[in-house]
């Protein structure tokens, strides 16, 4: 599946694409350079934006030296806010779509064209990279698997769509979706499963694409210590509240 279609050179679906590759990064100076280089190799004509989420190391300098544009948030605001900063830039500079992946090297930049092809070809408004659809082995711990299963089930309950990988941070948004997530509708606080449900309820078409997933090359995972417990609680709360909120659909395209 990876690499099908000609979207890599910007001609998926017959129209020229102006993609923005977004890499939210927090203290990733040891890894972000390699990821930027990988993205350049995979999509040479894409603009690469690294959003430095108030890192205390030299993530910004490393990313700039590697050839990326860099936005530096003045303090740490969380991955969701960092990503949204990129969406806002994409809206202002009228990019046609945004591909987002982790800056720690867990995602394979060579999978970007596959995600782009789905959005550019008009097959869906949102492409989500799934670790579980491809043939590549990914073995999360028991706790993580239980959590992901739970959210997958809740997401299915609320949207009627079966997601194999609800916590994926590897995704592509079309222009309409980018405009939507640049507004306050975007759940910036732990945004992964929450954003899928919000986008689905806003009427966007979502599709999963198989991607490769690597274990982290060192560094500290976002999910360490007591964080997973808070994460589970927060996710349950936002998933439970999502259907009670005002329909985002009325804001769509406004």
């Amino acid at each position, binding site marked *: 599946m990876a690499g099908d279609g000609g979207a890599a050179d910007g001609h998926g679906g017959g129209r020229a694409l102006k993609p923005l590759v977004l890499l939210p990064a927090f203290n990733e100076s040891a890894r972000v350079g390699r990821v930027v280089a990988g993205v350049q190799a995979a999509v040479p004509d894409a603009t690469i934006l690294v*959003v430095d989420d108030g890192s205390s190391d030299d993530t910004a300098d490393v990313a700039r030296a590697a050839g990326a*544009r860099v*936005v*530096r*948030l003045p*303090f740490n605001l969380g991955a969701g*806010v960092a990503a*949204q900063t990129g969406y806002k*830039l994409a809206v202002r500079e009228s990019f046609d779509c945004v591909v987002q992946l982790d800056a720690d090297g867990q995602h394979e930049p060579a999978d970007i064209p596959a995600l782009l092809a789905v959005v550019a070809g008009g097959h869906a408004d949102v492409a989500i990279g799934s670790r579980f659809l491809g043939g590549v082995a990914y073995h999360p711990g028991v706790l993580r698997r239980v959590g992901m299963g739970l959210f997958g089930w809740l997401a299915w309950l609320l949207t009627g769509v079966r997601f194999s990988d609800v916590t994926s941070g590897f995704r592509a948004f079309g222009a309409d979706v980018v405009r939507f997530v640049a507004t*306050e509708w975007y759940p910036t606080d732990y945004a992964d499963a929450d954003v899928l449900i919000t986008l689905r309820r806003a009427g966007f078409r979502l599709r999963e694409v198989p991607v490769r997933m690597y274990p982290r090359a060192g560094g500290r995972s976002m999910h360490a210590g007591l964080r997973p417990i808070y994460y589970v609680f927060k996710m349950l709360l936002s998933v439970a509240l999502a259907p009670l909120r005002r329909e985002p659909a009325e804001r769509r395209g406004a």
Partner: protein
Amino acid sequence: MAELTLHQTIFALVTSLLAFLFVLELVRRRRLREEYSWLWLLTAGLMVVMVAWYKLLLVITRVVGAVTPLNTLLLCAVLFLFAIAVHYSVIISRLTTQVKNLAQEQALLAMRLEERRN
């Protein structure tokens, strides 16, 4: 129903009045903004009213099913504090969103400035 003693009445009146005046003074000296003071003033004011207007306190006591008027006063104080705490949470949420938007805006502007300079 146990009566509110004169001792209790005086003490409740004095403390509520002091609280009211203290908040007013903070606003007067501009240490506290009016928009964050009104719930405190309302709380202290209603406490004064309930203590001074004993019949009203008795009616409320009967309505909520409390045992003594003193219980009613305490219950009201807790409810008011709850309302104030929730009010602050709402304000904090709004401020969080504003700070987030400002930080994003500042970061994007700083990048644009830097890119223009080079």
